[in-house]
């Protein structure tokens, strides 16, 4: 029995810890600001951070695949997808053409970056930095200004709340659901497919995974394509909820995503962690921001310092824990 508990803790400890951090931060917020106890505040976390959750899921997979894997292009992709779709919609193209087109574009750009990383042996940081420059630059080239979306389909998605059953005055938007759905897809991929397990294996040691005969090259390209898919979806969600496309959307979101992934217990060196942790990482990040917003008296700079310090604390707790498990 004790052995069982030990195994359980060793395997899921980091995840449990992230969950505990989230709950304590959340309840601390509720203690400080009674208004934070409203159920809608919890749903707002999902509404506000639906795009962040999506890109963080992709980012998690990329980071897990190791080899310095990182995707800096996510924010730029959101900008590009939102601007491109807004421009297309303005030109009168049907949303049922625009949506798949955007997804294809995201996947293709992701795969292209993956290919550059894999075939030209370019460091992911640099290749995806290029992706960031390219996507944002293209967004500005499409339109220097914000483009309004007036399409009815988009408006319906943006402005029709879905009321949560059994909880009064609680609602989400249809776009809010995309993140959780992708989360389930990512969980399935990472734990129940060869693709996912290969990601973990190569994250630990790419050379070994290659010698084990695993399709390392293909997986690497696919992982970046997957991240591209997530970013494209995030871009769609972004443009749907804001009903606009703009080159300055989601600036710096790549950093928020990396922070969330790390707070969620994934190691930047690859092979350790999972997407469920990332969900809590995103929620922790959102809760911290909420608390600072509910406070409302702090000078603007405290938000930044606060986010920095709390990230440090979260990582500190994580690392203490990981040292402990290593010892045991």
């Amino acid at each position, binding site marked *: 029995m004790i052995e069982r508990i030990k195994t359980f803790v060793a395997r899921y400890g980091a995840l449990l810890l992230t969950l505990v951090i989230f709950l304590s931060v959340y309840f601390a917020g509720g203690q400080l600001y009674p208004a934070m106890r409203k159920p809608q505040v919890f749903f707002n976390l999902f509404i506000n951070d639906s795009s962040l959750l999506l890109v963080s899921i992709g980012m998690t997979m990329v980071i897990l695949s190791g080899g310095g894997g990182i995707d800096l292009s996510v924010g730029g992709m959101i900008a590009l997808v939102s601007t491109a779709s807004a421009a297309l919609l303005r030109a009168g193209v049907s949303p049922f053409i625009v949506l798949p087109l955007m997804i294809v574009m995201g996947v293709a750009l992701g795969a292209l970056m993956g290919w550059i990383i894999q075939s030209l042996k370019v460091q992911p940081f640099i290749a995806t930095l290029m992706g960031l420059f390219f996507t944002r630059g293209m967004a500005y080239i499409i339109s220097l200004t914000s483009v309004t979306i007036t399409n009815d389909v988009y408006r319906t998605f943006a402005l029709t709340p879905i009321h949560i059953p059994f909880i009064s005055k609680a609602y989400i938007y249809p776009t809010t659901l995309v993140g959780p759905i992708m989360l389930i897809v990512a969980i399935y991929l990472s734990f129940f497919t060869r693709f996912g397990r290969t990601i973990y294996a190569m994250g630990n040691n790419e050379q070994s995974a290659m010698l084990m005969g695993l399709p390392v090259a293909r997986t690497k390209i696919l992982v970046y394509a997957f991240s591209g898919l997530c970013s494209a979806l995030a871009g769609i969600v972004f443009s749907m909820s804001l009903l606009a496309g703009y080159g300055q959307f989601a600036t710096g979101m790549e950093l928020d995503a990396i922070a969330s992934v790390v707070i969620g217990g994934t190691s930047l060196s690859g092979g350790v962690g999972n997407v469920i942790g990332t969900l809590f990482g995103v929620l922790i990040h*959102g809760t911290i921001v909420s608390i600072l917003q509910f406070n*409302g008296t702090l000078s603007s700079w405290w938000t930044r310092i606060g986010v920095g310090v709390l990230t440090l604390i979260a990582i500190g707790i994580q690392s203490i824990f990981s040292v402990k498990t290593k010892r045991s």
Partner: protein
Amino acid sequence: GNKAPASEKASCAPNCKYTDMTFCYPQLGAESDWRTANTASFKETAGELGIRLIFSDAQQKQENQISAMRSCIQQEVDVIGLPPVVEDGWEAVLTEAKNAGIPVIIVDRSVSASPDLYAAHIGSDMKLEGERAAEEFNKHFPNGAKVLELSGTTGSGAAVGRAEGFRAKLNPNIEIIDSQTGNFTRAEALPVMQAFLQKYKPGVDFQGIFIHNDDMGIGAIEALKAAGVKPGDLFIVSVDGTRGGFQAMVDGWFQADVECNPLLGPQVYEMALKLMNGEPIEREVLTNETVYYPDNAAELLPTRKY
């Protein structure tokens, strides 16, 4: 549904006082002197009047402003003042505020959302500022000239309005030969100006510059100095009327500075109180603004608050 009352009266109406008010101000950032003066105005005035101010800084990101507004809605504040970073994308959250019965006053820049989603708009008339700047050029160059434009953040209400007004009023014999954005910051204005100077010879290829705010103006001056341009060689008009701008006029760099008043706190709070008490308000309010000139800049400089 949009059935909820446009702006419920607060429970204390019609006798609400400033001390009863909780006011939410999701400031968009701290990108310029103008903005910091604006923040200071809201904070100081709230302190003086006893208003509970819920303030946050969105660091120029719309998504942060939106999530801050959602937090305010959950806190059931009395009034929200929103200085939107861009015009688009506010419909959903404004609807949420409306459904929660919280009136929203749009401050400074404007929004593209339907006007019945917010209570009022207070702000400078950006177009008018552009027109005023154009008139200065018209006065100074009756025989025509070539000018450059250093514009603000692309797509922002201020940059769009000022550019539009400027072009609308500018005499046809004055030609805008080039226009680039410096994002309202000094750091970015500087290299842009440098690039201009590589392309165009000051005094020969162009005689004047219209700069969308004082911060960029200060950055541009550095580039001009480095290129050996002297104060007065060029006719420069800027917008804002910050201390930096006044200093530039004293030094002879700016020939006019169109005011854009950031001290909106008192005006906005007054309107918010009226909203709480259910009193009628004007939907579009312009702030009082003027144009300053170098002749009395030195005198006025010490009286400037920002």
